[in-house]
């Protein structure tokens, strides 16, 4: 046994203690609160998505003549196909919800402020990539929503000044939705976007480790007690417990509300009532209110403002002398976000 250990140590010259020292770092006490585990939640769900996504890829066929049938086959014929597909769908929903909640938490606690501005920008990249993965995902099923969603999405891209035309061409593989389009969405959904997400995630976590987790001072803390606890094993165990709970929640959701099959895409008929997934309700409503170019440019401006928010916030605080100005703006923005989402959810048109 000792010879085996020696053999291994010669070839992989890192022992357990060194690994522990490398990965371990003190974690501020507030991370014991579940609310602060929202960053780990989407990362955990992303792993679930990779595993279930690989499983689904064994059967999925990315062509207009076969896509819907292959998803139907997964759902109705393959052993536990309905379960894997439902987990994939629900984990996507929860992942997007968790990313949004994580961002709201970071925003309201001001954790994006100097020197963590760059990590906020990377976080915005993660949010946008996650939304794009969600969008390309539901385009793959080749239901009515898939087809019309792709159509509308590509035309929104086209409305971007200067580069819009080539982008639409690149997304669709032609001037309009054609037999090459689905494979492009598949490549984006299963390779390009997840690859980008992994890169951004590595950068995001690296910067968190380099800066350390933002330390907050809460009024009810005992100053005599230690201010931090160990990442390993304490925080890792918290995240693992969370993972266990998430798996139970995902299984329950998948069983109670399994992913079903909508009507197959019909390029000749847009259904009388058609809506995107819930996370695009706000932009969907926005597009109804404003002319296309105005809606696209204003949406772009809002997203750009969100990306550079740490610097806007710093500027506003300097000019207005109001330290919590971001909190007031955040409350208005969150109310708008919820209000528009609810409005779109309750009306037919």
């Amino acid at each position, binding site marked *: 046994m000792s010879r085996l250990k020696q053999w291994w140590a010669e070839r992989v010259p890192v022992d357990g203690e060194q690994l522990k020292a490398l990965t371990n770092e003190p974690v501020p006490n507030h991370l014991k609160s579940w609310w602060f585990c929202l960053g780990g939640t989407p990362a955990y769900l992303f792993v679930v998505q990779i595993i279930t996504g690989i499983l689904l890829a064994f059967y999925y066929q990315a*062509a207009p003549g076969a896509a819907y049938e292959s998803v139907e086959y997964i759902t109705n014929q393959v052993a536990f196909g309905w379960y894997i597909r439902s987990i994939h769908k629900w984990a996507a929903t929860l992942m997007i919800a968790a990313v949004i909640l994580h961002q709201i938490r970071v925003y309201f606690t001001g954790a994006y402020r100097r020197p963590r501005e760059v990590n906020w920008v990377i976080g915005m990249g993660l949010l946008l990539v996650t939304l794009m993965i969600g969008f390309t995902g539901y385009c793959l099923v080749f239901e009515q929503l898939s087809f019309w969603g792709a159509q509308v999405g590509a035309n929104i891209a086209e409305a971007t000044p200067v580069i819009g035309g080539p982008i639409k061409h690149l997304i669709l593989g032609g*001037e309009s939705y*054609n037999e090459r389009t689905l494979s492009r969405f598949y490549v984006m959904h299963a390779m390009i976007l997840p690859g980008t997400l992994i890169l951004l995630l590595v950068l995001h976590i690296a910067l968190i480790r380099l800066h350390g987790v933002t330390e907050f001072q809460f009024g009810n803390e005992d100053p005599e007690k230690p201010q931090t606890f160990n990442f390993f094993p304490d925080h890792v165990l918290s995240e693992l417990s969370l993972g266990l709970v998430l798996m139970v929640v995902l299984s329950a959701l998948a069983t109670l509300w399994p992913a079903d099959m909508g009507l197959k895409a019909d*390029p000749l*008929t*847009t259904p009388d009532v058609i809506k995107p997934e819930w996370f695009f309700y706000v932009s969907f409503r926005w597009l109804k209110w404003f002319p296309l*170019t105005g809606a696209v440019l204003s949406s772009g401006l809002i997203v750009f403002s969100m990306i550079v928010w740490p610097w806007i916030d710093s500027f506003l605080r300097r000019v207005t002398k109001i330290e919590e100005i971001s909190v007031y703006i955040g409350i208005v923005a969150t109310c708008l976000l919820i209000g528009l989402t609810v409005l779109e959810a309750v009306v037919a048109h």
Partner: protein
Amino acid sequence: MADEKQDQSQEESIDQPTAEQAPSSDAGRRDFIATGAMAAGLVGGYGMFGYISLRFLFPSTEGETALQFVMTTDRLKVGESAPFTAPDGSTMVIARNGEGETAEDFIALSSVCPHLGCQVHWVAKDEEFFCPCHNGAFNAKGEPTKGPPKYANQALTKFELEVVDGKLFVRVPLKSVREDERGMASRDAGQQRDNSRETRMA
């Protein structure tokens, strides 16, 4: 004058390197050329590869179009209209708005909403084409009346028409995504539904 002489002698000393300086200067030049050639090769090679990759993503086989016979012009009187389905499945409404025998006396309105590409349908009670995606609406002439198309003044697209010897032709795309579908049931159902849709133009 004395200063000028001094400057001249300095320039000469720079122009004529000593025996020790020569090899290092040659080495520097060689390094520069080697680095430049390497950089140019890398940029050229990978640049070309990048260009080819990008070009690869833009397929060159664009959808072909062709003139398709619709009907003889005497079949349609002024103010009348008829639905028409192209070989690729795209639908349109063709109407006559003049007594003459030219293409300008006819109009072929696409059923694709110019806002974001959804399909409009005729709502008889409101006498309008309605787009369910973002609540756009158009009158019977295809002019925008409500929603985002109205704000941006986007009318329904008109297909190109030609009249030759009393025969009406429309220029239409030949192939669509539906050609690729193995299950033709939905297409057939769609065609039946579209053919049965009567649209009276104002």
